[in-house]
Structures are given as C-alpha cells and as structure tokens.
C-alpha cells in the first residue's frame, strides 16, 4: 500500500518536472506576445514563427560549426545561439518595419491581419528553403540524474531540463531588470502607458517599438534553441503550435502583464503534462484550451491582468 502511494507521488513529481520545463519554454515565447500587446495593442501572430526561425537558425549554426570540426559543445551552443539571436532579431525588426509600422494609425484589425499574413510568409519561406520534413539533431546535452526510485519507477531529471530552467530563469531575471531599471525599459513602459505622451516627451516611439520586437525575437530564439535541444526535432510548423500555446499562456496570465506571461506559460505547461500523464495524450491541447476558456469566463482579464477602466 505504501509503495503504491510512493509510486503515485513519484509519477506526479515526474509530471511536475516535465510540465515546468515545457512551461518555461512557453513562458519565454509568451513574454514576446504580451510585450508587443502592451505597447501597441496588437497580437503579433508572426511571433511563433520567429520562434520557429530561431530554432532553425540554431540548427543551421550547430550543423555548420560541427562541419567546421568544432568539438566543444558549450562553445558551439554559445556561438550558434548568439548568431541565431542576431539574425532572428533582424527578422523581428523587419517584420515590424514592413508589416506593422505602415499600418499604425490604421483600423485595429489591419495589423492583426497583416500579422497573420506575415506568419504565413515566414512558414512558407522556411518550408521552401529548408524542406517540409522533420529535421533532427542528436542530443547534445544527454543524460541526467535519477532523483529517486520507487518500486521500479524512476523520477528522472535530465540535464537538458536543468539547462532549460537555468537559462529561462536567468534570461527572465535579465529581462525584468532591463524593463524596470534601464532607460530603454522605462521608455518601453512609458510607451505602453501613453504612446502619445511618451512622444511628447521626446521619446522616439517608433524606435522603442522596434526594440520591443527585437527583444521579443531574442527571447523567442532562445526558446527555439531550447526546444530544438529538448525535442531534437523541428519542422516549419512548430511555430504555429508553440505560438498558439504561448499566446494562450499570455492571455491566461493576463495579456500585457510580464509576470502573467511566465505564470501563464507554466500553467499551460503543467496542464499539458499532467493531462498527458493522467488522461490522454491526444486530448492535451483540448485540456489546455478548455482551462483558458474557463479562466476567461470567470476572470476576463486573466490571472494577473488589470481590467481596463476607461476614464471619462
């Protein structure tokens, strides 16, 4: 009896570890959605595809470095991550410049439709240039540790999961500091609260918005690389599913709220992994989105979102 309870606990703990890992990746992407929404009030549907491009750029970088005979894994990871971030940042900047900025001041739906168009463009571009099949990467950070074993069930914590957690937490700490303490972060928050007033104080709002997209793209690229290393397999469509999940996470946490995005990401990750572990894997998305619906019915502004009260 006692061993049976032990197995149950062990099993739940394993789901918790898997869910937190997944949730961190969602959280990193969700921050990009929520940041852009906060500042210009639009959903950047192409953000998931920037994540996908980040994953592809990482894979290309790693393959190239291996081709050049680089054997040090940490060095190869660092170089290809830096390169991928730089190029993906350019993608993020370009997307905003050509697809959203010309539509600023247009009706609300216009940039949204433009974003969907941009998402299709990026997906098809990668499909054509990289092929539609899954591309695989051998595990670069193999192994892990067994936390404990209970009656034959081993609770595993892989090194990759540790890396994902550390990288995500470090990145979020840097990002939080950037937003709260630096002049750029202050300008971003000012633009978020009152774009016109920020401009009247001499802040170049277009530049601040561009930088917001660049930062979002960098976070998404890191998420893309972690995804690549964790699952070892990517294709041109991963941006859609991960993007929709991360968007859901952002809405669940309260769109516009940065801690909300991370919290929402963790919630979605945990729901998915627990549902997969206890109910059925094919229905995991149904579970995640059902929770979204239920939360929004009772808390329309999300978990940490503030309700907008129009002043008259």
């Amino acid at each position: 009896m006692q061993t049976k309870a032990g197995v149950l606990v062990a099993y739940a703990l394993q789901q918790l570890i898997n869910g937190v890992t997944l949730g961190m990746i969602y959280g990193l992407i969700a921050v990009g959605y929520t940041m852009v929404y906060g500042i210009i009030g639009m959903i950047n549907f192409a953000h998931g595809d920037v994540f996908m491009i980040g994953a592809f750029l990482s894979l290309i970088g790693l393959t190239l470095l291996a081709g050049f005979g680089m054997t040090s894994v940490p060095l190869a990871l660092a170089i290809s991550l830096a390169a991928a971030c730089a190029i993906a940042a350019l993608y993020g900047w370009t997307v905003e410049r050509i697809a959203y900025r010309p539509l600023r001041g247009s009706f609300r739906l216009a940039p949204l439709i433009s974003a969907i168009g941009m998402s299709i463009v990026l997906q098809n571009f990668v499909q054509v240039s990289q092929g539609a099949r899954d591309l695989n990467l051998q595990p670069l950070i193999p192994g892990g540790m067994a936390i404990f074993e209970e009656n034959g069930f081993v609770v595993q914590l892989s090194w990759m999961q540790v890396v994902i957690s550390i990288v995500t937490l470090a990145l979020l700490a840097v990002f939080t500091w950037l937003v709260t303490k630096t002049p750029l972060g202050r300008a971003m928050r000012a633009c978020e609260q009152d774009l016109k007033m920020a401009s009247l104080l001499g802040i170049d709002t277009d530049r601040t918005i561009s930088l917001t997209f660049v930062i979002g793209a960098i976070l998404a690229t890191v998420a893309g690389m972690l995804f690549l290393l964790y699952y070892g397999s990517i294709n041109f469509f991963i941006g859609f599913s991960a993007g929709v999940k991360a968007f859901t996470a952002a809405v669940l946490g309260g769109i516009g709220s940065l801690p909300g995005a991370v919290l929402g990401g963790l919630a979605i990750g945990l729901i998915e992994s627990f549902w997969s572990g206890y109910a059925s894997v094919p229905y995991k998305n149904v579970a995640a989105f059902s929770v979204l619906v239920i939360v929004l019915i009772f808390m329309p502004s999300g978990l940490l979102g503030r309700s907008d009260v129009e002043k008259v």
Partner: protein
Amino acid sequence: MTAPLLSVEHLTMRFGGLTAVSALSFAARANQITAVIGPNGAGKTTVFNCITGFYRPTSGTIQLHHPEGSSYALQSLAGHLIARRAKVARTFQNIRLFAGMTVLENLMVAQHNTLMPNVVSGLLAVFGLGGYRHTQKLAIEKATTWLEAVGLIGRADDPAGSLPYGQQRRLEIARAMCTDPALLCLDEPAAGLNPRESDELSELLIRIRGGGCSILLIEHDMGVVMRISDHVVVLDHGKKISDGTPAEVRADPKVIAAYLGEGDEDETPADAEEAA
C-alpha cells in the same frame, strides 16, 4: 526688441466643416509668459495641439526660433522631435502622467534622450558603461531639483497615480521641465486648484520664467493670468480679437463683449471639438 521665440502665422485648423482656428497670427517672446485666453470653445487647446504636433494644421506656419539661431517649423516636425530638437514641452488639461510609474520615474522618462541618445548607448547603459552612471546621476539630480521646486520630494517613490490632484498637476509641470524646454505650454494649469495652490503655481511659473524658459499659458483663472502674464492673446471663435499687455487687454471692449457672452449659442460645436 529680440526676435520672437514662437511665431504663429496665419494658422488655420479645420475639422470637416468646422473651422476651429482661423488665420491666427501671434508671437510669444523669449523670457516672457504669454497667456492665451478666451471663452470656452475659442480654439485655445486646438492651437496648443497644433504647436505640439498633435494636429497637423490645415494651413499656416508655426516657427520656433532658438536664441542661438536654429529655427524649426513645428507644423511639419515629427512628433518626438518637437520635444527633442525644438524643445517644446506641454502639459494637459486632463492630466496625462504615467500613472503606473513612480514620481521619480516620470521625471526620468522625460530625460530619456539624455540617458539614451541612441541604441548603442542604450546597450552600453544595460551594462553600466559609456558614462551612463554619470549621466544617470545628473538625471537624478535634475529630477530632485524639480521635485524640490514643486514640493514633491517626499513622494519620489510613490506611484504617480496615487498623488492628489494638485500634486499631479505640479508633477506634470516638473516632468515637462525635465525635458529642458525652451518653451513650456501649459493647458489650464490652475484648473481645480484652490486659491493657495494657485498662488504657489504663479510663483512656480515666475520662477520657471526666471530660469530662462518661456511659457505659453492657457488659463481661465484671470487672477493668475493678470498677475503673471507679460503678454495676453485673446481668442474667440478661432480668431484673435485682442493682443497686448494684461492691462490693455482688460480694457479692450471686444474682450469684454466676448466674455459677457455674445453668441453663446454658437459655442456648442466648438466645445465638442475642444473636448476632443
């Protein structure tokens, strides 16, 4: 006589069929307080909105001449450059502070261009390099000076939205002053203030003028206007009806007629415009 700091020439602003400002010309001189007064709906706020880039005027020019020689055509300058290059700052009738940021942060945002003149310096600032610490120290000093000037030094770390109304007004002026303006445009700064607060405001404005910043003022509180203005421009129905020293304007029969309410019934559409 020196060249005027601000010269507005034949400014016209139409909204559809409504002419809010019609062929308006006036000048504001350096180191003076110029008041723009007039009944509700006279087009005062519209003039401000044209000067600060909120509206693109239908026709006319708005020139700003800095004493050192550079001059700017405000009617065609991009929004953020009006504050950054031409050095024009403004406050609003309905307060527009960044309510979720602290009092100090509001003043730091106003110094954004000193703290982060370009993207590279922004990156350096992230790592605390490139003289950023020194610049930041100066920015905090300037913010502190203005917080002391408006009596808010004790509230520096409180959210701006939590301040009482009168303090928010003063903070808005302090924030505008942190952009180092050559011309400060104040839209009804005394609205909703009690007599003591109005007196403090008058002193503050005189002090700002003494510091070399010129002021353009929209105000309904005639006590404040008559006491501190060097020059008064009177608008009615989008046209200038009088222009001179406070004493001259007060004695002008056209001004008296406008304030006693000739043609009150015409003011409703213009009111709607001014609110927008």
